[in-house]
């Protein structure tokens, strides 16, 4: 398929991996920020192609994983109400709240619908004037413009029965927080290509300068990621710490100005709690004063209750790159995709689920096969 196959070519991938091996002289730890990149790395086995001394750390860029437990509980509370149609992207439905998930709310009769765009939720609101239609607005800068557009459209059309449960997060403050942590092992970043397609990459320049880390804006296909790693390693080896753009076919330095303007109009920057990581100042988006009538939390008068994570879940450490999923004592034991203890085991972009799906089973297989060999 055009624009896909070119970036999945096995020969080119091996060539790039060889180049990385050639220029790598020592151990480097590089964090890919985005969950989509983690998914690609594990799905295509990109780390299998890399030299041993390149350590990939999986960052906090999975919207499903970092949405706080309290927000999931609020979503469940709203979705359980009579007269509400609760709309969400598909993969939020399986995320565990304190006592259940949105799929269970649906099973008990709640009107929970999977939509592909927040504008579909606006359409549902128009078609169901007697119902309250709530859209679960999660994600990073990537999904924010479409969610802003939905609110903007609803307000233009004077829709009174549409609102957003907002839990938007911003990437650069999270990168700052990771770099400022005394435990941080990150020496270079692959920045999230799609986030930068919206926001551009000028805002990463001060981070690279201040913390002396190279940041490479990177795409999602195997060759994109390998090239991003190559560019990052090259900077590390040469002692440079700049922002470079691997994903030039989608990203400009200034980003998408129209999208940014719409976001600025509808949203404002707020404090934000990241599941497993904690509170990060100015790291989220909330509805601006002018659009606060579309805030589902205000409309339904939800009080903030704090919720406790499962004490055995180390997803916070995984999201900060301090631990690998398989370093968790419950990984693959009490915690599996069917019985997740935390969100990183739920989403297909979550580091734990990705490792479980593509790696854990393989280790099991190899163990079983070597056992067979011994028996034979």
């Amino acid at each position, binding site marked *: *398929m055009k624009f*896909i196959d070119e970036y*999945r*070519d*096995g020969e080119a991938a*091996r060539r790039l991996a060889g180049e990385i091996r050639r220029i790598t002289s020592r151990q480097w730890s590089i964090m890919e920020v985005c969950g989509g990149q983690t998914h690609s790395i*594990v*799905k*295509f*086995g990109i780390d*299998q192609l890399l030299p041993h001394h390149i350590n990939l750390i999986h960052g906090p860029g999975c*919207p*499903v994983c970092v949405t706080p*437990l309290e927000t999931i509980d609020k979503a469940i509370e709203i979705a359980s109400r009579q007269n509400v149609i609760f709309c969400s*992207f*598909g*993969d939020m*439905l*399986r995320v*565990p*709240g*304190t*006592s*259940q*998930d949105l*799929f*269970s709310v*649906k*099973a*008990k009769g709640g009107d929970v619908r*999977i939509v*592909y765009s927040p504008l579909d939720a606006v359409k549902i609101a128009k078609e169901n004037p007697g119902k309250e239609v709530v859209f679960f607005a*999660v*994600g*990073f800068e990537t999904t924010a413009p479409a969610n802003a557009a939905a609110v903007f459209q609803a307000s233009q059309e004077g829709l009174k029965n549409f609102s957003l449960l907002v839990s938007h997060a911003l990437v650069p403050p999270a990168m700052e927080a990771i770099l400022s942590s005394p435990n941080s092992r990150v020496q270079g970043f692959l920045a999230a290509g*799609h986030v930068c397609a919206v926001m551009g990459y000028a805002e990463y320049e001060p981070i690279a300068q201040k913390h002396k880390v190279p940041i490479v804006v990177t795409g999602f296909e*195997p060759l994109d990621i390998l090239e991003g790693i190559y560019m990052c390693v090259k900077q590390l080896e040469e002692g440079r710490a700049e922002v470079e753009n691997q994903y030039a076919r989608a990203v400009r330095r200034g980003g998408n100005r129209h999208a940014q303007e719409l976001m600025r109009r509808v949203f404002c920057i707020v404090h934000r709690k990241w599941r497993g990581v904690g509170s990060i100042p100015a790291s989220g988006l909330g509805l601006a004063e002018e659009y606060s009538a579309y805030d589902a939390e205000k409309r339904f008068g939800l009080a903030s209750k704090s*919720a*406790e994570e*499962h*004490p055995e*879940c180390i997803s916070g450490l995984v999201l900060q790159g301090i631990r690998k999923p398989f370093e968790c004592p419950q990984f693959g034991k*009490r915690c599996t*995709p*069917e*019985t*997740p*203890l935390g*969100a990183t085991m739920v989403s*297909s972009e979550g580091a734990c689920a990705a490792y479980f*799906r*593509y*790696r854990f*089973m*393989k280790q*099991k*297989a190899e163990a*079983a*096969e070597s056992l*067979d060999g011994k028996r034979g």
Partner: protein
Amino acid sequence: MMEEERKGFPSACPAPSAGREHILLAHGGGGRLMSSLVEKLFLPVFGSRQLGARHDGAVVEAGGRLLAFTTDSYVVRPLFFPGGDIGKLAVNGTANDLAMCGAKPLYISAAFILEEGLPIETLSKVVSSMQEAASAAGVSIVTGDTKVVDKGKGDGMFVNTAGIGVIEHALSIEPASIQPGDAILLSGDIGRHGTAIMAVREGLQFESTIESDCACVAGLVGELLEAGVEIHCMRDLTRGGLGCALVEIAETAKRGIKIEEASIPVAEEVRGACEMLGLDAIYVANEGRFIAFVPEKDSAKALDIMRAHPLGRSASKIGKVAEGSAGLVTLKSAVGTSRIIDMPSGEQLPRIC
């Protein structure tokens, strides 16, 4: 087991255990949850040998002859979609399940659960389509049933079909028969039915309309058997797609399976739709595709027969059964690395971004 696990959790545990007290949509998705429902709820109670074989249909003996017997319910929405409708699907699906047991489909039943208010014309169209599909598949619809439920209690109409076919060969076609070294043949490109349905259901527009692959493959299977291909196992790739079918067979047979991504045909438009929705084509449903496990010596002959048939033009050899008893499916990716194919919990969910 789940009960025991839950007892150990403190009340603040975020595990989605509460949902397991109810049937979730994912229990019908063809993945891990459905598999565990079959293993933990149905099998221990019904416990017949045929159910334990985990095949598409049961092989039973009657009057000294071997028969294949199967049933399936159809709840597709919308009722009409590019490439087919609920009626055609119900006849072909059941005929295919019989064919997967190596049987020649003969007789089919048709049971309708109709929602009050359904236009008679709609029913009439579905029934005509069923007859057309039955004639094409060489089966007769010989018995049936009709029930009507209150408005709002059914999605227009649900159809159940059961079928009987006759087995005219001495092969044991079932997961337990697969052998290390067996070639795995795929009858055509994958992912058409699932993406076609999703495209209409969600109003997604692509450059060209994706049509369901809904078709009866019994004729093609008959040709393979007549030519003396020693088929060890077959499976049609419905819910859960190629991925779940392979995992189910590997786990039932306790054999390893190795496949190559590059050898699995996926049409351009289906790949495009899957990329856009964040779906993996190997888990997307098909209604006219199957895999056959045959000894390597028969694989070239079987492929020739498949490719000469209109339903098998893009057939390919996608992998083989490996030594070892791990029951795992490994895929060699396009970039030459390998990964495990696992069964998803339920249906795949479109990703956020």
